[in-house]
Structures are given as structure tokens and as C-alpha cells.
């Protein structure tokens, strides 16, 4: 079996339960190398659970999930850690170290592959620094390289987070709502950067999104989740409004204010 044809991620008959609640229930799902996939769905649909299951942070209750050739249910801890190092994660809240500089934050991406003891003293190898610098250039933050992360804007911080993942040199990049904290224009820019970076490093990108419009614009495959099940798995162009309704159908938005007739306030909806 040629390595190129083996799926990067393979999910079969996967069930993940949190107590009584079924968080994920997927019969067949496969991601191939180089794909850029957007996962959409309402809150609670299981998008984050799926991403964490791929990363190996959540154990399947039953079924199989195989990432980079390793079955999460049957592998030992050491093998799991080794494969997890090849999977990068980007978070909605960035999760940078606020008091460290951009460079130091990006160097943290090398922690899994550099000399452990030396890193504790802040010493990274010349190769680490080169990789970090190249990553910083890729996201366009050369000027801010010695600036503290908590002095940067939201968009810049997410770009540092992207650089940190690039420095990790992963084969799979998972992004959990990476642009939900950014305004739409900035979000589109950051997504575009994320995709460029993924293609440049020949990685596979799986992206949770709250904004179907962004998904349609940027990815080459959309997976729609609803109540833990896949309700759409196709190219973005076939994602019609009806299909979208299917994904978000019957979703009860949480009312922000009570419908208090005496006060005359209207229900505001927390949107999808």
C-alpha cells in the first residue's frame, strides 16, 4: 500500500459517550493527505469532540479511530505521545504565553523535538531558532519578533499561534474555531494564511468553523455535524441553503434575555 494513498485519518464505527450523552456517532469518515476540510455544525454538535478525538485527547467508547497509522484505542502511551507530536492544534483563544515574546512563543512549538533538559534553561538549538524564524516570517511578524505576546492584537496573536504550530512541523493541523474571536475581515485573512501555510508544508488541515460562509470560501471539503452525526460530507459548492438548514435544523438558540412582556424586551438569539 503506497504511503501516499493511506488515509491520514480513518474513523470507523466511532462512538464517544460522555456518560449517557452520545457526543459522537460516526460510521465512516476518512481524511486524506493534503485535504483542507471545514467542519461546521451548531454548538454541541460534536465538532470539538471530533477534533480532540483525532488528537487523541478523548478515548473512543467504541469503534476505531486511526491517525497517521496509529489506532488510538490499542496503542501504548509512548507511541501515542510520539504521534501526537505530529499533530498540531490551534485554539480559539490562541493560548499564547502572555509574558513571553513572539520568538519565545514560537520556539515553544519545538518543545517536543528539541533537547528536553536544555529547553528548561531556555536554550534551543540553532536549528530550532532557524525553524522558528522561518515560521515567524511565514506569518509576517518579523517586526514583532521580540515583542511580548500580550501586547499584540488578536489577529497577530493568532498568527503567532499559527507560527508556533508551523514550528512544530506537524503533518496534521487541527484548528478549533481559530477565527471565532476575530472580526470577519481579519478572520478571513487569518484563515487564508492558515491555508497557505498548510499547503506550503504539505500538511492536512481540519478546521472547525462557526461561519459556513467562511468554510465555503476556503476549504475544498465540508463536513456538517449535527448531534454527533455526519449530515453533510461533500465539496463546498454543493452546500446549498437547504443543506445548511439540514445541518442547523431545529437548533434552538439560547435566548439571551427572557421574553418579559412587561419589560417589552425581545428575545435575542445566540446564533450558530
Amino acid at each position, binding site marked *: 500500500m503506497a504511503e501516499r494513498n493511506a488515509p491520514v485519518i480513518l474513523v470507523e464505527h466511532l462512538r464517544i459517550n460522555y456518560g449517557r450523552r452520545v457526543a459522537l456517532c460516526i460510521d465512516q469518515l476518512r481524511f486524506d493527505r493534503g485535504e483542507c476540510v471545514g467542519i461546521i455544525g451548531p454548538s454541541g454538535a460534536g465538532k470539538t469532540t471530533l477534533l480532540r478525538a483525532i488528537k487523541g485527547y478523548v478515548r473512543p467508547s467504541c469503534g476505531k479511530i486511526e491517525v497517521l497509522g496509529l489506532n488510538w484505542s490499542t496503542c501504548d502511551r509512548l507511541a501515542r505521545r510520539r504521534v501526537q507530536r505530529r499533530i498540531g492544534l490551534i485554539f480559539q483563544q490562541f493560548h*499564547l504565553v502572555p509574558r513571553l515574546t513572539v520568538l519565545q512563543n514560537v520556539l515553544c512549538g519545538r518543545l517536543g523535538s528539541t533537547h528536553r533538559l536544555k529547553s528548561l534553561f531556555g536554550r534551543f538549538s540553532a536549528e530550532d531558532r532557524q525553524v522558528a524564524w522561518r515560521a515567524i516570517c511565514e506569518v509576517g511578524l518579523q517586526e514583532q519578533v521580540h515583542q511580548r505576546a500580550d501586547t499584540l492584537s488578536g489577529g497577530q496573536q493568532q498568527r503567532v499561534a499559527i507560527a508556533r504550530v508551523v514550528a512544530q512541523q506537524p503533518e496534521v493541523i487541527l484548528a478549533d474555531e481559530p477565527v471565532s474571536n476575530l472580526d470577519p475581515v481579519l478572520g478571513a485573512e487569518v484563515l487564508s494564511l492558515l491555508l497557505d501555510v498548510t499547503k506550503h508544508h504539505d500538511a492536512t488541515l481540519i478546521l472547525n468553523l462557526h461561519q459556513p460562509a467562511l468554510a465555503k470560501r476556503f476549504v475544498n471539503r465540508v463536513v456538517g455535524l449535527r448531534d454527533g452525526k455526519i449530515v453533510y460530507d461533500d465539496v463546498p459548492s454543493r452546500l446549498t441553503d437547504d443543506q445548511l438548514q439540514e445541518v442547523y435544523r431545529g437548533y434552538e438558540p439560547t435566548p439571551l434575555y427572557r421574553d418579559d412582556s412587561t419589560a417589552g424586551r425581545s428575545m435575542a438569539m445566540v446564533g450558530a
Partner: protein
Amino acid sequence: MSGAPAIVRFVTNMMPPDTTGEILAIGWQSALLTLQVALLGTAIGGLFAVMLGLLAANNLTPEWVHHPLKVLLAIMRSIPVLVLALLFVGAVGLGPFPGVLAIAIHSVGNLGKLFADECETAFEGVWEAMDSAGANWWQKVRFAVWPQVAPQIVSLTLYRLEMNIRESAVLGLVGCGGIGFYMTLYQRSFNYTRMCTMVLVTMVIVLAVDQLSVQIRKRLT
């Protein structure tokens, strides 16, 4: 209230403070010893407090590690420094050494708890981000926790030092030497003017260190 005239008499007996060169020299040297005891005790205590405080944080270590440690730290700080010093003087004899031990142990208990509290403030996100990059426990502590708690740790240690200097002055009462020893010596031998000098020297040193500490802590954040 019947003690009021006695107090007045006591205070007038103390005045004016004895400022002869010999007494001032004694005051100065013993104050230096007191300072050294406090510094050494705080340094040793601070070092162990950082190690134990980290391990005692409930978000960084498993239950069987952080729970007993928290109990240990509580015990260490519940015994007053004076009592600890008494115990150690009994164990190792008179001198500054038991004073250093007493201050160190009490500081570990005190600072250790404060450090653990600092570490417990939410780091979960950054901790997970480091884990995602492949970091082990030590690297996660070094990069996700340490940069954020370091300023507070230094600040808290300096604050503890201020208090330890005051404690150290008092420890002379139980045989640890330093200015506390001379204060009680002169008090018991009715040399109130000399005792007054010792008290004033102590005040000056404590105030000076307080001020210095405030200045340093201002520059920390």
C-alpha cells in the same frame, strides 16, 4: 489603667537612648546578624517553597501528590516561628542556626501555600497548548506556568522577607542571638537606655528594608 504611671516611668527611664560608640557598635553588629538570619532563612525557605508549591498545585500534579503536600505546608505554617525556634534551640543549641531553620520552615509553609495558589489560577489553555506541541511535564511548568507566576513569586518572597526580619529580631529572645538577644539582655539588667537604642536600631533597619522591598516590587510588574 493603674499601669499608666508605670508605663510613663518606664518610657522616661529609656530616654535618652544610650548612644555611646560601644553600644552603637553592638547594636549595628547584632542587627546585621539578625538580617543575615532572616535573609538566609527566607532564601532557603523560598527555594523549597517554590518546589513544594509547584507540586502542591492541584492543577499540576495528581491527587496523591498535591493533597498530602498541602497538608504538610499547612502544618509547617501553623506553628509560630518563635515556637519553632524554641524547639530547634532545644535540638541544636543556641545561636543563629536554629533561627535560620525556624524561619526557613515557617516560610516554606507560608510561601508554599501562596505559590500553590498562584499556580492554580487558570493555565489550562496554555498548558494544553504546550502539551499539544509535545512538551513534557517539566517543559510545561517551565513555559506555561513559570513566566506567569514568576513576578508574583518574587514579590511574595520579598514581602515574606520583610516579615521574617521582624521575626528574626524577636527570635533573639529564645537564644538565637542577634539584636533580640541584646534587647532582652539589657531589659533584664535594667539597662533601659541601652535597650532603647537596640529598639531604635531595629526600627530603622526594618523601615529601611520595607522601603527597599516596596521599590523593588514596584519595578516587578
